């Protein structure tokens, strides 16, 4: 694989992204605003273990940020690239699909690193004192990124650009509400709660929360849910993705 080509493609995508206000709103502004607002305005119920609102909020907001970059932003970007014929044109260049996939992975990882640094600094400033095992949290985010990217590419590769935009934003809102990222999942009706626990959003929020609370544990169920999604979603995307 041509490293210069992968680097150029990664750089081009990051430059384009930095000019798109709606992407920055989704990946950076919304998580920061939610984090600051709900840690200052003590409205949300929280687990008994959480000392301050920010302690309950920060892990969930990190999970939300991961979902917004690896699923929503990837889906919308790729959907429109497909509609504009960008993917088709790249397909007739020497870049190649593995290199394109690598570049897209590098873009997501870069954005996620920036998100994690910015959100952690804001949360520290708001008094967040995480314990536990940060490496475990990073592992869960990595696994979830693969799962979310599979879902995002499945949408982008099967729907038109505008339909992908609508579907990805709709999914974002629903998973924000039932993903245990901002609102605790145990306040949901029982059926909805058990359904939510099978989705990657709630699984990621739970895995990150448990990794960063005092115990630093890796509960089985959310990790299994993430692993299943991380296997199934990319497989579906590969099977159904249409390049033109």
């Amino acid at each position, binding site marked *: 694989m*041509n490293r*210069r*080509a992968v*680097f*150029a*493609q990664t750089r*081009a995508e990051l*430059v*384009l992204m930095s*000019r*798109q206000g709606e992407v920055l709103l989704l990946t950076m502004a919304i998580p920061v605003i939610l984090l600051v607002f709900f840690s200052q305005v003590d409205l949300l119920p929280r687990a008994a273990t959480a000392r301050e609102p920010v302690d309950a909020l920060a892990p969930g907001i990190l999970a939300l940020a991961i979902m917004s970059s690896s699923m929503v932003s990837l889906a919308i970007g790729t959907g429109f*690239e497909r509609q*504009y*014929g*960008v993917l*088709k*044109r790249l*397909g*007739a*260049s*020497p*870049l*190649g699909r593995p290199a394109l996939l690598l570049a897209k992975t590098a873009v997501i990882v870069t954005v996620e690193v920036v998100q994690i640094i910015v959100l952690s600094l804001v949360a520290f400033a708001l008094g967040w004192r995480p314990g536990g095992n940060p490496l475990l949290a990073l592992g869960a985010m990595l696994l979830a990124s693969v799962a979310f990217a599979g879902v995002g590419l499945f949408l982008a590769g099967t729907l038109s650009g505008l339909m992908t935009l609508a579907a990805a934003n709709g999914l974002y809102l629903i998973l924000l509400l039932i993903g245990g990222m901002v609102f605790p999942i145990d306040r949901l009706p029982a059926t909805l709660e058990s359904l939510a626990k099978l989705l990657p959003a709630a699984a990621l929020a739970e895995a990150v929360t448990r990794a960063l609370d005092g115990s630093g544990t890796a509960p089985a169920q959310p990790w299994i849910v993430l692993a299943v999604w991380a296997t199934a979603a990319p497989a579906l995307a590969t099977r159904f993705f249409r390049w*033109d």
Partner: protein
Amino acid sequence: MPAISVEDLSVHYRRDRDTVKAVDGVTFGVEPGEVLVLLGPNGAGKTSTVETLEGYRNATSGRVRVLGLDPIADHQPLMMHVGIMLQQGGIHPGMRVIEALRLYAAFYPDPSEPGVLLQRMGLRDRARSTWRQLSGGEQQRLSLALALIGKPKVVFLDEPTSGLDVSGRQIVRDVIRTLRDDGVAVLLTTHELGEAQRLADRVVIIDHGRMVAAGTLAELMNAGEDHGIHFGAPAKLDVSALSARIGAPVIEVSPGEYRLDSPPTPIVIADLTAWLSEQNLPLADLRAGRHSLEDVFLRLTGRQEQGESHS
């Protein structure tokens, strides 16, 4: 070995419940340093043929090779040496001209200098413009620049001059002639006869997926059983009276366009002009012997009755 070879290619696909024969038994080759024009009305199968050569489509049957390679099985190595221009789009609307050129330059081992290409395409003033700010013609020229940046040996251009103004067309034609002089094999599609006539070393005419003619321009224009005289005059002439006078059949091919099926001897021409002058009718134009490519095209694709319905 030809740079591009297409042998008995058929491309069928299913639409609703029907099988559409987009390409049906097409054969041709393109040598290095040659411009072959695939000419046909819209929907004739030109793009399907080119997309099979570019590796986007599977051949239903037949065989295509580019530089001796299979466009699908050997896609990656082949793309190093092939430049393509899609019929439209292909660039992110927010990407600047210079960014697109630098990005594609990074894909090839020995690319052309982006600045030189910008100059050649008349886009130097637009380097900082984004794709969506470009006019249709400027987008076409940027697409052409991206097709050439890797110094390809084979170039596929799908309707490269559509939507271009006069000066844009001139730039594109000059670039294509330079490619030919540099030994590049060029396959371009068009539905415009004028472009084919200006650029082609050889022409392949296809219609409804089938090849209806192939050859050099001179061969095509001299070809066929039709060596008659073509002339223009007011519509709805009394062709049977004229036929009787000349002693050869005359038909009105389209309103005001006539064909006289006779060798163009001076006697026949004299009879024709005498008959018109007796009726005090004007003669719009008169062509004998060689046909224009348009005559050939219209006859072969059977478009006389529909006039310009293909455009």
